[in-house]
């Protein structure tokens, strides 16, 4: 198992380097000059040349990239062209907002998704089950930002209950959480329901029933542990996507998170901020996926046995 984890972590390094190289190339080799953006339309050629020299933009692309990469290995993620502050500080000041939205939304979708999924599997074909299925169809079809807009209209504009702009109070996060979790909630319900149905109809569960095990025991001890495996993977994948996906929700609720930093930086051609923040999101997403896989092995002895063999 340890061997496997180390192997996965080592494999991550070339992947992250490749991602950062592709992004660096896209940001640098396409039209648009950061110096011109900073100085505006009134800039003189001399001014631009001077700023190029100051920011290190007069060097060739590959030199710039490898200098940046070398810095990363020493813990220096470069300096923002726009604000002239270290990229690391910039990201660190924005990351908490994104994490609160992403982890909050995922927790909501995981808790409610698993509970509703179990209920609708246990009461298959009941009215509640049908309503849940229609609801999941609706939830997957609604774009998260549209749900956000509707929530703002209802709860901020008409009822005046919740603030439409996200600040530091917890109540201001309620709407972002709900709108960001909708799609993931639907997929969690669907997966939990179908895997629960598979295990409920499995032979060993029927045996347990025949031996007179109480229903609670059958659902929670016999079925759930097996049914949860694919759900764990799904939640891991969702969490990774959510970190990148909050970018649109951040625009709806004016959240000063990583997404809005990224959008401004992309518009200003602030290469090191863009590359560093996207690579960081990818790293977090991969680590979470790895964590899900480890958890998977922890829950399922069969999987664990497989890893320790290989």
């Amino acid at each position: 198992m340890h061997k496997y984890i180390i192997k996965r972590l080592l494999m991550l390094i070339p992947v992250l380097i490749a991602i950062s190289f592709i992004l660096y190339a896209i940001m640098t080799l396409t039209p648009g000059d950061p110096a011109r953006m900073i100085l505006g339309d009134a800039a003189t050629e001399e001014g631009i040349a001077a700023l190029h020299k100051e920011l290190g933009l007069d060097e060739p692309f590959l030199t710039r990239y490898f200098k940046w990469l070398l810095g990363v290995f020493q813990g220096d993620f470069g300096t923002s062209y726009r604000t002239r502050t270290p990229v690391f500080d910039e990201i660190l000041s924005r990351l908490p907002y994104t994490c609160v939205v992403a982890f909050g939304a995922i927790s909501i979708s995981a808790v409610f998704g698993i509970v509703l999924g179990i209920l609708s599997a246990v009461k298959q074909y009941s009215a509640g089950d049908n309503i849940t299925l229609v609801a999941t169809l609706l939830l997957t079809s609604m774009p998260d930002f549209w749900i956000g807009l509707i929530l703002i209209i209802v709860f901020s504009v008409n009822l005046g209950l919740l603030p439409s702009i996200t600040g530091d109070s917890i109540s201001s996060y309620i709407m972002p959480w709900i709108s960001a979790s909708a799609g993931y909630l639907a997929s969690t319900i669907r997966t939990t329901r179908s895997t629960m149905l598979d295990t409920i109809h499995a032979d060993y569960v029927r045996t347990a029933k025949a031996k007179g095990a109480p229903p609670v025991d059958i659902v929670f001890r016999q079925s759930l542990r097996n049914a949860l495996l694919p759900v764990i993977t799904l939640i891991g994948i969702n969490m990774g996507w959510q970190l990148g996906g909050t970018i649109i929700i951040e625009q709806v609720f004016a959240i000063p998170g990583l997404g809005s930093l990224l959008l401004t930086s992309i518009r200003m051609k602030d290469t090191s901020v863009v590359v560093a923040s996207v690579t960081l999101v990818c790293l977090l997403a991969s680590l979470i996926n790895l964590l899900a896989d480890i958890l998977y092995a922890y829950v399922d002895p069969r999987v664990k046995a497989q890893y320790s063999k290989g």
Partner: protein
Amino acid sequence: MENMYDLKMNKQDLEMIKQKYKKKSQLHSIWIRFKKNKMAVCALIIFLLMVITAILAPLFLNYETDIIQQSILQRNQAPSAEHIFGTDLYGRDVMKRVLWGARISLSVGVIVVIVSVTIGSIFGCVSGYYGGVIDDVLMRVMDIMLNIPATLMAIAIVSAFGNSIRNVVIALSIEQIPKMARIVRSQIMTIKNGEFIEATHACGTPDSRIIFRHILPNALSPIIVEATLTVARSIISIAGLSFIGMGIQPPDPEWGSMLSESKRYLRECPYLVIAPGLAIVLSVMTLTMIGDGLRDALDPKMKK
């Protein structure tokens, strides 16, 4: 004489047999199974109506005067008999713009699917059929692409190469190719070990013919289902990109960019949010239902 008669009967029989078996073609039996799912059929009808409206829109709407022409006198009108969903902040009828928007969203969705299915299938076929080093390299590249959250990737591409429908299509296709390649690859890997493929090898059939004539048709059903769902996903993605200003630009009436315009006027005219959002929900929901119906209809286990 009797002989002649016999021959005639045989010909008629043959025609009848031909007719009988022609009717029971693969496509026909899939349709029969699809028809059993009433929800999916309803969804298909609604979706086809949307497609027809989108195609015929230029016949009853004029792009210059109905869609982008601004009339300040009519701005921000609440829904009425004349303007069912009201008018936006430039005095344009929201209903007409949403109808025109279907042309953009649906065509982008379909083009994205064509591009990503074609390229994804090629990658998946090569990777699954040949295996070995090619497979390792291709799948590693796909892994890298899957590792970048899709929205970020699309934003990076669109912002780097400029805002245009073509670049949005490229960005969304790149997002979908790895998923498609993985699905095709896993299908190919199960099919290529079948005995009938071994037989084609024994006959000396060239690889390209084995892949396109013998393997790919067998792998088609998951590809078709995934393609339907990909159109749905692309419609949401393009709306999201346009919403943050990284997709279709105003004055083109894309649903996401219409929502983005209405965002600033939530207090004054909340009705602007309704129509574009409903259009997205309706198209995505019908496509998802069609996809689910197709999945059941194409599943050989459901054959009876």
